[in-house]
């Protein structure tokens, strides 16, 4: 789910950047540092353009200046129970991985309907019920998040497709 989230970040600036363009530099630095990263809980999609940069403060003992920047950003956070669409990334006997943007979702065997089985001999390998449901790399799939886990810089989730209306989507 997407949110607009208010965030704060401290940016340190090397003295060589002190000057009229300091603010620009800070802005760039912020975008560079923050956009597209995840803190583990959510993914920062985009920093909104208004930020509030505090007065700089030289850090004692070093010549760097510290700026506290308040900003708003569009963030994306997956929730347990949320139903999401993604792209199958890789498959193996134990299940398959789905990419939903920055989120790596694993759908394990026990969360795949029993009629859909792994066929490692197919090319490419696929999970299939030998009917119209074929899950292979690149398949669009709809899944329901069962649990999420975040580490610094990475998000991970497991999901199920063992419910109604979940599973591969007809290719458009």
């Amino acid at each position, binding site marked *: 789910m997407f949110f607009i989230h208010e965030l704060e970040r401290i940016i340190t600036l090397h003295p060589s950047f002190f000057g009229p363009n300091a603010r620009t530099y800070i802005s760039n630095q912020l975008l560079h540092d923050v956009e597209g990263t995840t803190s583990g809980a959510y993914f920062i999609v985009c920093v909104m353009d208004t930020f509030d940069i505090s007065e700089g403060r030289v850090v004692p003992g070093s010549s760097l200046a510290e700026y506290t920047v308040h900003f708003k950003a569009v963030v994306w956070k997956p929730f*347990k129970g949320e139903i999401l669409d993604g792209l199958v990334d890789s498959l193996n006997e134990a299940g398959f991985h789905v990419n939903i943007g920055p989120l790596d979702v694993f759908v*394990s065997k*026990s*969360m795949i309907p029993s009629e859909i089985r792994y066929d490692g001999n197919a090319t490419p390998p696929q999970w299939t019920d030998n009917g119209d449901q074929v899950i292979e790399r690149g398949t669009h799939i709809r899944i329901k998040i069962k*649990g*999420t*886990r975040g580490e610094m810089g990475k998000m*991970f989730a497991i999901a199920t497709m063992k419910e109604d209306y979940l599973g591969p989507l007809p290719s458009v």
Partner: protein
Amino acid sequence: MSNLLNHDFDDEESDDEFNPAPEVDSGDEKGANRSDDGQSGKPSRVSNGAARKSREAEDDEDDDAEDGEPKAKAGAGGDAEDDVNDDEDAEGEGEDDDEQGGAEDDDDEDEDEDEDDEEEEVSGRPRKRRRRDRRMQFIDAEAEVDDEEEEEEEGDEDDLAGDEAHPDDLADLPAGAETDDRRHRELDRQRELAASMDAEKQAEALRERYGRQRRAAADVSLQPWQTFLPEADKDPKIWVVRCKQGKEREIVLTLMKKLDDAKRAGKPLGVTSAFTREGTTSGYIYVEAWNQMAVERATEDVQNLYPRSKITLIPVSEMPDLLRTQKDKQLTEGMYVRIKRGLYTGDLAQVYEVVNNGSEVEVRLVPRVDYGVSEDLNAPATDGKRKRPGGLTGNRPPARLFSEAEARKKMAKYLQPQGNLKRNHFNFRGKEYIDGFLHEYYKLPALQTENVNPTLEEVSKFVASDEAGDNLDLGALAQTMKQNASGADYIPGDTVEIYQGEQRGVWGKAVAVTGDIVSIKVMDGPLRGQTVDSSVKGLRKMFKEGDHVKVIGASKYRDEVGMVVKVTADRVTMITDATEKEVEVFSKDLREAADSSGMQQGISKYDLFDLVQLDAAHVAVVIKVDRDAIRILDQENSVRTLLPSNISHKIERRRNAVATDHEGSEIRFEDVVKEVSGENRQGRVIHIHRSWVFVQDRNRMENSGVFAARSNAVTTVAAKGGAVTSAGPDLSKMNPSLQRPGGPNGGPMGPPKTMGRDKMIGKTVMIRKGVYKGLIGIVKDATDSEARVELHSKNKTIAIPKESLVVKDPITGNTIDYSKFASGSRRPGGMGPPQSPWGGATPSSRVPNGAGWQGGRTPMAARGNATPAWSMQQDRKPAGWERDEGGSKTPGWHRGNDGGRTPGWADGSRTVAHRPNDGSRTSYGGATAYGGRRPQSTWSASSKTPAAGNHGFSSSSGGDPWATGSRTPFHSSSSSRTPNPYNAAPTPGALNAPTPGGPSWQNNSHAGATPGGFDAPTPGVYAAPTPGAAADHPTPAAYGGGRGGLSAPTPGAMDAPTPGARYGAPTPGAGYAETPGAWAAGTPAAANDDDPRYE
């Protein structure tokens, strides 16, 4: 438990249900019955159906009434007895088909009774002797019956109980005849009826009858079980009777027979049942009866039964417990048990197969076979019985998997391969070994099935051999471990669920755990919000899909973290974060993981290629780390898999460890070595432990490329770095004769030449070029072209080309160009002409130059006089000073001593004295040590440093030069070598004079000197310390680690000497004068004071 069921009793029960007793009619009878009950009547009621029936034949109604009563009392037994009823009914049917066909209003019971009656008829007169009956005769409405009974009784008494009573009797009792008649008539009637009924009706009747019974059974089952509990006055009581242990079952069977006989004989004993509780209470049987007398009668004269000892009544409240069956723990394949007796007592075994209806199991064991090792083959064959105890009591062989090879070694004749070749199946001495495991049959009692608590280690023995590895994890352990639930598995905050008992389904959060009781705050359902206490039994942790959990506890997946994907009862399937593998674990082994907790790999504390200590004598290298096991390769190149707990500790890598290779050169960490013999494997040394080296060859696959070898079985292919290697205690450096053929001046001659200590070492230098330009440092080591300089400004040692250095006089601060220095070095030697030998020895001469620069010369002396110089020195290098003291010095001493010093040296006095003293002294000593080496020469040259010189000399052959050249004083001191001087004055001299100085002085024969000498030395020494320190500092460094001690001395020697030189050695006169002057006051005193200290 075997029940003796009384048919009549059963029937009566059913009767009650279906024949509402015409109580009105039989009111009298009832009363009578009651009274009977009160007394002893009841028993009869139960078992004497036959007698009754004979009478009943005539009055069914009465009978019913009678039956009704007991039945009510016996209600509890109803369930079990239904079956019996069925059987009886079946019989009845067969017998009285006609009657049944008639399907009169009579119930099953009636039929049964009829059956009985028939029996009676068949067997003749029913035998009755019940007093109650007799009484009843008066009560009964029909006199005939009574008469009959009476008659019977009489007959019984007279033993004339024949059915065909005496004709007279018959005549007397027309009633009896009538009875017979009546029965016949009845029969006829029934037959008629049966005949008149069509088959369908018959079927219906049958169905009705039996259908009802089924219905009845169903009804009963629906009744709350509490209603079946016995009541004190309505049900028979149970007595417990002692018997011989192990005969319980037999006795009960005997009793059954006896009761049956008695009943058949018409004298029922009034016992309703007898049973035993095998196993739980051996030595007792239980008899259910209406009164104790019945029990006594039933139990007397039964073999192995001791009714006379004691018959105890069981309280009603305890009766249900007697029959409570405890569900036996069901053994299933794969479970773990422990053996209770025999050789394998306490050993863990795995159930392989359950045979004989569960009373016996085939288990797999890790065998304890000694393969005849302890057996005396020559011993006369004795009977097996005698041997066995020995085998058991002696120390039993260790548990190991069966080894075919070992078995073949000594006892091949007992070894027979079995089965197909695929399986590793043997018969060895009559026992089966399959895949290394012993397969044995055990009876259930010989196995401990509760509280097995298999340890991971034990289980792993079974698992390890299992190809599939995984298949044991849960199924097997599940059963075994389930009982072991304890409060320890739960901590407040766990989400738990009650899955057993009345509160099944309740779930909530544990708020407290007290022993085995968990308080749960219920989260759902009607109890929501309340706190419920529950025993850990019947409790399990609850997880939901998507929960992030961590495995704790004894599971082999311990410390794995993952997300739950499936929950089945108490098994949870999770996907591990690390491997994304699905693993199944018990919920009790899981705990909610903090969301942020990273994937802490529960890998052991040992890393790949760690050197670990296994026991006192064994070390090994880790070559594989698994989750729960570690594979190691020990110093004998054997590979084993161990649990981390089997490893004593990790040995830190000693990077500076040194070993000697096949050719005597040293091996260090990371050197490339090659095996001298064998496979000629080659690799990089990863560990050196004592005389073993562990070598890794990255190109080999086996054992991760690691192999172990004795250090002297490998030869160095390439040392890691030449320079570094040379810094070590290089033997060649220690032995002058191996020294390279001299520096610039070096001639190929004799020892002097070989003296190769770079004069740069220990010098204070300034760097002229490069990034370090301008920095000052001390030369710690030097090669021909390069010097390693320890910078003053940074704690750093760098290698600098010598050309880039200028030598700085630490005192004056003057700088001397290296080239000049190098060449000039000689000069000092020259200067020391007095010490001609010095000059002669080129290298040595060099050394002196040190002295030269230090001003060993007069000038020096002059300078030396100036106390400031001293002080200067001191100031300069406090650090060095400390270092020296630190110990390098002292050792130096020691070494010197050991080195070949004359015993004189050895005398502690000196040494001791020295040690406590400042480094200067030590340095002296060191000098000695040095003396052994070439440096001494240097020394001697420079200052004659008397002491140093002496020592050195003494030890080293170099002495000669000394002898000749060195000053007398030195000489004399050197004489130390030659025991005389030393010996002569050993102690004192030594003491006072910090040796060298002292003796030298004295020897010098400067009269005044002596004292002065004394003083001087001491002071010199003392004072010297500082300088010494300064000097020392460098030296040790130069020498490098191991030698430190030695080297240290040198410098000390140098410094010390210098002073010494100043004083005495050089120009004695001048020096002397000065010294005394300078030192005069302080020194002596100091000296004196010191002396004692020394000693």
